[in-house]
């Protein structure tokens, strides 16, 4: 079964914060996050490993709760360039359905 992402879509104004969640029905060793802009290929953001630290990427960070089999992606002070679809991926190389993020100026 594929990871479940929520919400399905988010609309923000520039400067606002967002949280995207990813959960699995199976035990996870790792969670990967990717971003895809319209008409382009997915691009890697970060990997969170079991027992590892919270990762950060500019104003984008993520956490991984192994016991709850969940990961969350935090986008702080969102920029127009953050628009796109965010995917989480489990350690079985299966992707979630994605969360569409649209940033308004």
């Amino acid at each position, binding site marked *: 079964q*594929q990871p479940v992402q929520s919400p399905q879509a988010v609309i923000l104004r520039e400067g606002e914060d967002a949280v995207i969640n990813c959960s699995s029905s199976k035990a996870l*060793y*790792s969670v*990967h996050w*990717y971003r895809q802009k319209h008409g*382009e*290929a*997915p*691009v*890697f953001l970060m*990997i969170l*490993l079991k027992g590892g630290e919270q990762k950060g990427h500019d104003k984008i960070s993520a956490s991984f709760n192994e016991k709850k089999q969940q990961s969350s992606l935090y986008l702080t002070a969102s920029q127009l360039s953050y628009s796109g679809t965010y*995917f989480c*991926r489990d*350690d079985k*190389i*299966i*992707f*979630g*359905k*994605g969360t569409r993020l649209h940033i308004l100026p």
Partner: protein
Amino acid sequence: NAGVTQTPKFRILKIGQSMTLQCTQDMNHNYMYWYRQDPGMGLKLIYYSVGAGITDKGEVPNGYNVSRSTTEDFPLRLELAAPSQTSVYFCASSPGIQETQYFGPGTRLLVL
């Protein structure tokens, strides 16, 4: 480094025709993958390979075949094209299964 390259960029097939989608990586990665992405949807794993000569099925392998004779190349074969195979196909590679996947630019396939 070119990274992951895919050819062709776009193709129109008639129902029942066959074709091969090419994928090449120059990063000496052991792992290679094929995904399909339908409009507005997520990525579905078709096949993957852990090294030359070794392939395994993903979530949606029916209607496709793969081979991996070299580290660099991982072609995807469609034998009898069907309208349900209209999609964007992405190839990706990674050094290991828990490491960053690098995606190619994709092949847009339309089956009519």
